[in-house]
């Protein structure tokens, strides 16, 4: 028995090593070197050997492990959400409380607050997309388009018309929402994957337009010098311009750059919590119920007299509005935006945050955002491996927990193992 298991594992390992070697041979074994005259090749066959050895040993170990542990006793993360429904609420409050005091904790320096701000932007985007994907069940691969619309609306309104952040914020949200309606109106009749590809196309269209409409958006050079937000007219600068007061002067503090970082942190925290509160409340309203009903069964919805197009449109527009808010915050925080910030990869990251977190789960989104955005921020030094690890994490989490880290609802029925669905 043990001998047979060992033999099977050995076979598996060798097979894995051979496949890995074949895969690694062209891409790892040779390196294209562009010298002055022509393209030449350099070899590094030791890398191929390493890749084969690592994959072979890995397969071997995995195979042995699988045989020694019966399939139903593979350690899994227990479904905490389902077991302790109350705990979810408490964790939520605890997280919110922690987020509130974070900037004042002794270990919180400027860079930490900065990173936390970045994570919160994605949390907010995730919560916004959660309305579209998690609640209404519409697969949106171009969410970043609305984020871009929000960012550019604020940047253009502020730099060309000199409007303040607080005035532009609702306007950016409205613009993004109307773009959502504009796109949604024709395409929401499509189902599932067709919708996905059209939204993806829309995201690309917006980016291409931003890049090429140079007169209006300044093209690939982007918009710089976007004004920073003020706290009821108080500026976060060392010296106030004519007729204005700085934050530090007004409260009699010494000027410090950290004030603005902390202020921005609280702005995004407030915006994110607003998104969360909105989602939690609207779930209990008829429109929220209709979203979830639509996700479960469109035909049943129709026969109950709900208008699917209007319901989808409202979900789409609501999600877009929050993306618009997040976008204008992003613009004011960075002070500079360009089409580079709004590529498909951003949409993929946001969607990954929603799906990895477990669709429809608000805390799941926070967890996934911490994991996908927060962790890589810490490993900035390993810049070049960052995206590789990011993609790998996405695959691994899906393999490990296909329904997300904290899935909100248990499926009512599940087909047996091996049956196609």
């Amino acid at each position, binding site marked *: 028995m043990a001998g047979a298991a060992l033999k099977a594992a050995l076979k598996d390992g060798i097979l894995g090593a051979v496949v890995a070697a074949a*895969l690694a041979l062209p891409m790892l074994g040779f390196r294209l070197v562009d010298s002055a005259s022509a393209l030449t090749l350099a070899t590094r066959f030791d890398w191929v050997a390493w890749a084969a050895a690592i994959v072979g040993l890995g397969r071997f170990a995995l195979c042995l492990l699988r045989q020694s542990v019966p399939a139903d006793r593979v350690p899994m993360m227990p479904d905490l959400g389902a077991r302790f429904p109350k705990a979810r609420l408490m964790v939520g409050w605890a997280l919110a409380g922690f987020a509130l005091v974070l900037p004042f904790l002794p270990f919180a320096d400027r860079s930490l607050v900065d990173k936390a701000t970045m994570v919160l932007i994605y949390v907010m985007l995730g919560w916004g997309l959660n309305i579209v994907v998690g609640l209404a069940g519409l697969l949106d691969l171009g969410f970043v388009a609305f984020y871009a619309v929000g960012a550019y609306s604020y940047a253009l309104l502020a730099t060309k018309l000199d409007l303040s952040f607080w005035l532009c914020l609702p306007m950016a949200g409205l613009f993004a929402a109307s773009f959502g309606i504009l796109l949604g109106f024709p395409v929401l009749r499509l189902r599932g994957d*067709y919708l996905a590809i059209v939204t993806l196309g829309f995201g690309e269209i917006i980016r291409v337009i931003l890049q090429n409409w140079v007169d209006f958006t300044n093209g690939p050079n982007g918009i710089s010098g976007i004004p920073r937000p003020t706290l009821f007219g108080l500026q976060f600068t060392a010296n106030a311009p004519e007729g204005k007061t700085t934050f530090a002067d007004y409260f009699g503090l010494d000027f410090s750059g950290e004030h603005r970082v902390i202020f921005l942190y609280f702005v995004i925290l407030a915006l994110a919590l607003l998104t969360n509160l909105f989602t939690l409340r609207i779930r209990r309203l008829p429109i929220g119920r209709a979203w979830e009903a639509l996700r479960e069964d469109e035909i049943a919805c129709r026969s109950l007299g709900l208008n699917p197009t209007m319901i989808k449109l409202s979900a789409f527009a609501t999600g877009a509005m929050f993306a618009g808010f997040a976008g204008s915050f992003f613009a004011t925080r960075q002070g500079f935006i360009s089409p580079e910030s709004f590529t498909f990869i951003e949409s993929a990251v946001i969607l990954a945050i929603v799906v990895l977190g477990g669709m429809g789960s608000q805390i799941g989104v926070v967890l996934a955002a911490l994991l996908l955005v927060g962790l890589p921020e810490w490993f900035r030094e390993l810049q070049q491996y960052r995206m*590789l690890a990011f993609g790998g994490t996405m695959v691994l989490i899906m393999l490990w927990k296909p329904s997300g880290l904290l899935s909100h609802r248990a499926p009512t029925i599940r087909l047996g193992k091996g049956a196609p669905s």
Partner: protein
Amino acid sequence: MEYFLQQLINGLTLGAIYGLIAIGYTMVYGIIRMINFAHGEIYMLGAFISLIAFLVSTLLGGTSVALGLLAALVSTMVLTALYGWAVERVAYRPLRNAPKLAPLISAIGMSIVLQNFSQLTQGARVKPLPPLFKGGIELMHGETFSVNLSYLQMTIMALTVVLMMVFTWVITRTSLGRAQRATEQDMKMAALLGVNTDRIISATFVMGATLASVAGLMVTLYYGVIDFYIGFLAGIKAFTAAVLGGIGSLPGAMLGGLLIGLIEAFWSGYFSIEYKDVAAFSILVLVLLFRPTGLLGRPEVEKI
């Protein structure tokens, strides 16, 4: 008129390449109802592997360009197919019964991994290849503009036609093709009737990757430059082509590819080259509005 004809030729060449990639999307979607986001990266890997294979064959002393290209073509098809197989085995097969979005996220993750893998191993800079095929025929000689059909364009179109014929034969005449069609229609029933559906799905990925690798080789020759990022846009456009033609339909994928290629060529020829991507996607939206299942797709019947 001359200009029109030239754009037609360019568009058909480009369309042949898109069509070959689109077939991989449409086949995979037809069988497991999933957008294989990593397919564009498979095509990108095909381009890289073909470039490397060609250089290796010249290093090994091959003096004939044609022989070197043939060797590169064969080895690229085999190695890229292996990549296609491995991606399915690692990232999709364990998720066969998972919720619908799980394979999609896994595919997006895989596409990020492959893209960065080739960036890390081959460097981020654009890789140039001097043109190997020179010359062509002058089809029409105008006063200001003459229409050229290069030998390379002819090769690309001929190769595409040959591949399509082989491929159609496999799908319609062999037992593998029959099993594939059965799996596409009803996977559970096919499995009950003794079709090894896992193997059929693997074969589908292998076939799709093979066609994409040929497209990669063609692009390397046609444009003469490749980088690690080419897979993304080509992937989206090929998927657009698949949807345009009617997803799940093989002639549809080819037709969609040709249409996208033509739209792009004419748009950049007559209007503006910057907005050619916008044109392709706008046409897609229009087609989907009036024919939601694509040009050649079967209408989906919904059972309650």
